[in-house]
């Protein structure tokens, strides 16, 4: 088990190291003076800020220093939580913009991932049991999993928001509201959250249902299932074992799907102008605010790595074999 976690942590450490290095390297690969060209391309809100930004960023990049010192400095500022200052939202620090957006993204991602996983697994297990269900759940799941997140989001926003006018289609809360700990505000927040959440949930659901169905059918044909059938064990017990064992590859699948799910959440936020990281990234791209973009990149990488680690811990709790120390989950 120590080996298992050691290996995992090494991979995560290396990944983060690579992400930071790429993040440091890419702007330096651009021809010419990166600060000047970035400032020239960016749509800075206040023209008088240009000069202040140039001084600030020349200082931050420290081009007069040897490259290894530049590199070490970038790690230093990273650990201080300093991601630079946003060009688009000058003079707000990038870190502030990101920390303000993260709760909204998490509020969409965490419930939709967990719920779609749980419900999808149940649906898949049911589909594996009955032909009738299989013939309905499976095609629907394939359509859902083939649907681009952004398109289902757009369809739902259009149908429920524009045509029927049931739900608001933009923002995290109404413009007339100010964030406060009141009942009205929470209801408003929830109302704005429901559609983006539902569209994320639905697209993710399909994939889990298909995965569970396939794994559980495989489990039901496995040797231990055959042995138990031969000993007259009721289907209920065999299905319970099969489901329990089929959950394990689905947990690994969850780790593998994180990147896709995060991507889905980002574009869904954009469709609903939901004030999370996705909308921030769109703003950064449209306004060529590379510092904001880079900060968002590191935030996302870090978030995905943490989520991966949590999944690893869960896996060890759920799969006794990892604790016994003979095998690890597929890395």
């Amino acid at each position, binding site marked *: 088990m120590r080996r298992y976690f050691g290996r995992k942590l090494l*991979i*995560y450490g*290396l*990944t983060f190291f*690579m*992400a930071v290095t*790429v*993040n440091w390297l*890419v*702007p330096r*690969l*651009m021809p010419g003076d990166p600060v000047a060209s970035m400032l020239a391309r960016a749509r800075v809100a206040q023209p008088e800020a240009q000069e202040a930004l140039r001084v600030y960023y020349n200082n931050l990049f420290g081009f007069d220093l040897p490259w290894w010192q530049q590199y070490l400095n970038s790690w230093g500022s990273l650990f201080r939580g300093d991601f630079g200052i946003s060009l688009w939202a000058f003079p707000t620090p990038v870190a502030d913009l990101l920390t303000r957006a993260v709760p909204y993204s998490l509020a969409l991602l965490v419930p939709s991932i967990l719920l779609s996983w749980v419900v999808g697994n149940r649906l898949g297990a049911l589909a594996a049991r009955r032909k009738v269900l299989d013939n309905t759940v499976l095609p629907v799941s*394939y*359509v859902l*999993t*083939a*649907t*681009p*997140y*952004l*398109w*289902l989001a*757009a*369809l739902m*926003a*259009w149908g429920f*928001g*524009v045509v029927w006018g049931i739900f608001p*289609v933009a923002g995290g809360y109404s413009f007339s509201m100010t964030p406060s700990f009141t009942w009205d505000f929470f209801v408003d927040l929830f109302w704005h959250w429901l559609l983006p959440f539902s569209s994320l949930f639905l697209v993710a659901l399909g994939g889990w249902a298909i995965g569970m169905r396939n794994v559980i059918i495989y489990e039901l044909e496995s040797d231990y299932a055959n042995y138990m059938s031969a000993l007259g064990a009721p289907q209920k017990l065999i299905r319970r074992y099969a489901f329990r064992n089929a959950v394990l590859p689905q947990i690994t699948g969850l*780790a*593998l799907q*994180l*990147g*896709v799910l*995060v*991507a*889905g959440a*980002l*574009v869904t936020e*954009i*469709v609903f102008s939901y004030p999370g990281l*996705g909308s921030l*990234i*769109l703003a950064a*791209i*449209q306004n*060529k605010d*590379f510092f904001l*973009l*880079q900060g*968002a*990149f590191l935030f*996302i*990488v870090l978030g*995905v*790595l943490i989520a*991966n680690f949590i999944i690893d811990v869960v896996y060890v709790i759920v799969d006794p074999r990892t604790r016994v120390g003979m095998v690890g989950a*597929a*890395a």
Partner: protein
Amino acid sequence: MKTEALYFAVRNTKLLVGAGIILVLLGIGVIGPFFIEKPPTEYVGMQMQPPGAEYWLGTNTFGQDLWAQFVHGLRTTFLVGALGGGIAAVIGMVVGFLAGYKGGWIDEILNMLTNIVLVLPTLAVLFILNAYIGVRSAGMQALFIGLTQWPWAARSIRAQTFSLRGRDFVDLARLSGVGSGRIIAREIAPNMSSYLLLTFILLFGGSILIASSLDFIGLGPTDAVSLGLMLQQAHQWSAMHLGLWWWFVPPGAGITLIVGALYVANVGLDEVFNPKLREL
């Protein structure tokens, strides 16, 4: 074996339906543009026309013909999917074959690399690369997608190679002094060709979905029209609020149809190749 696969292939509804949809859409994307004289971005006339006899899919707020965009978009979408999926499949095969066949430290290093790229959130990497490097042709987009999509393919190909490595016919080839490259090309790859095809199809579909996301956040090709770009423009110009459903419904449906058909065909093919899955 070949004829047997064909026997099941022409009887597999999933494969036939999936392949049928793909062929029809591919046909539209390949042949369609020849029947449309004007470039897809040209302002052809009336703005915001609903679908009708003259403009099959209507026009947008600028008076561009959406059918023309759709047809050209299909072409780009297929191109990006095939190229991106193809590049990812090739990298995945090289890494998977090498790691699985060679083993030892080569396997260790490649495995580590695979796992690192695997946990990196693809879209986040792509938007950094795309935003900075900024070369935005469809081919470039496909290349970037291919470069980030290969890890799971590499992992499964490695596992398959690993199990084939110990087989008699591979041992025999090795004992008779055949080089690694030839063994992989002559003995191992042909024995998992059906599996490689299935992998490519999944990568194809995945690449289309990623490309649509990239297009949508404004990092799509600048020299082409794609289904994802249509969605992006529809969103940017508030098609939803203006009630121009014909602007964003068809391109999304197109993507869903292509990817869904690919997945369904994939399941069908799996049943054709894998005797255990055939229904009696």
